[in-house]
Each structure stands twice: as structure tokens, then as C-alpha cells.
């Protein structure tokens, strides 16, 4: 009587992103995975876009002109935010992984996220006022 109901399966990958009933560490995991995927996507997009530089001044300057679009700036802010969140959360993972602050991992997470929020805010203000 092979029973497959409720068994782990790759098809249930959305469970990674399900925050219902989860705790601090679980939210941190979701945040980290979402930002990781976003940043990987951005990394390759960024490389392709920078290829414009090789085409000389016309291509690049034309492209930069497009970048002043406020929607694009919001997108850029998202990238910056993702980088900050992933980076600071990464610090928590490294520390706990070597046994440092395991018992304080929740406090650590909240502190780092507070720092992240402030930094993102500063970046946001600068980017929209520049």
C-alpha cells in the first residue's frame, strides 16, 4: 500500500515561501531565498546591460537616459534593498552556523533587519532626491 499523499515533493516548492504558522527563522529563510533569486536574476541582467558599454558612448548614454524613469529607480531601490537584506541576513547565518549567537538568533535577526531598514531608507531618500 504505497502512500504518496503528503510526502515531500519538488512540486511543493511553494512551501518554501509559505509564511503561515512560521517563526522568525522561517521568515528569515523566506526573505533570504526570495532576495537570492532576485539578485541572481539581477546579476545576469546587469551583465547583459553593461554590454552596452562595449558598443561605445551612444548605446550606453541612450540606455542611461532610460534609467531616469521613476519606475526604474524603484526597481533599482528594490535591488539595493535585496542586497542589503540578503547581506545582513547572511551575516546572521554565518555567525549562527559557526555556533555564535545561536540562542540569540531571533534578536540578531531583528537587530540586523532594523539596520537594513534604516540603510534602505537612507538609500531611498538619496535615490529619489538626487
Amino acid at each position, binding site marked *: 500500500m504505497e502512500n504518496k499523499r503528503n510526502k515531500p515533493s519538488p512540486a511543493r516548492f511553494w512551501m518554501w515561501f509559505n509564511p503561515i504558522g512560521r517563526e522568525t527563522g522561517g521568515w528569515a529563510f523566506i526573505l533570504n531565498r526570495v532576495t*537570492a*533569486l532576485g*539578485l541572481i536574476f539581477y*546579476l545576469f541582467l546587469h*551583465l547583459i546591460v553593461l554590454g552596452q*558599454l562595449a558598443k561605445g*558612448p551612444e548605446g*550606453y548614454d541612450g540606455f542611461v537616459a532610460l534609467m531616469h524613469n521613476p519606475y526604474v529607480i524603484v526597481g533599482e531601490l528594490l535591488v539595493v534593498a535585496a542586497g542589503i537584506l540578503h547581506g545582513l541576513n*547572511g551575516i546572521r*547565518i554565518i555567525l549562527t552556523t559557526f555556533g555564535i549567537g545561536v540562542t540569540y538568533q531571533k534578536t540578531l535577526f531583528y537587530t540586523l533587519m532594523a539596520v537594513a531598514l534604516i540603510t534602505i531608507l537612507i538609500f531611498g531618500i538619496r535615490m529619489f532626491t538626487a
Partner: protein
Amino acid sequence: MTQTTASKNISAPKYGETAWLWLVKIVTGPLLVIFVLIHFIVNHFTAENGLLTYADVIAYYKNPLIPAMEICFLAVVVTHSLIGLRGIILDLKPSRSTLKIVDWILVILGVTAVSYGTWLALTIASTGI
């Protein structure tokens, strides 16, 4: 005697070996934080309003330290992200053969990205001269 068994288990290469990969990911993480910081600080000080024109970028790349740093940055960020991506794919329970293919794709992708980036940085740096 326990030592010999330990060494046997530990040194026997296993496919999907992740101890070293994991360590590389852990080490490249803080490196990236540092790189990003440098990137922003240097960016901010060398170009007042950011690298917004082609000319700015060319001027920025005149300092030979800049393309060197950017290439290192790229290598580290590609390594970190592709090891991370492999970690996520591992969660999807790939078969041994699938994982082998995934590994090859990731390696090719990584090498291509870094070579392309290096070529790009060097091209820009040489344009300026």
C-alpha cells in the same frame, strides 16, 4: 583506529560534495559585503553624481585598480550566487544524473559570465587610454 575510519569517510570524494562548496559560499558572503561597500564608497568619491555617462565610466576605469577590483568582485559574486542556486536546486531533489548536468551548466554559466565580464572590463579600460 577511529581516526583512520574518520579520514576514510571524510577524504573519500562524494558526488554532490558540499562541505567545501558551502565553505566557499560562507567565505564569499562577507567578501561580497566588503566589495559592495568598497564599490559604493569608491563610486561615490570618484564620481560625484554616479557613473551616469559613458565618459564617466571610461574615466573611472582609467585607474588600473578599478577593473582589477571589478573583475574580482564579479568572480566572487558569480561564485556565491551559483553555489547558492545549486543549493536551491538540491532542495528540488534532482537525480544524480540531473545534478551532474546542472553542475555542468552552472560551471559553464559561471565561466562564461566571468570571462565576459573580464573582457568587458578590459575593453573599457583600454578604450580610455
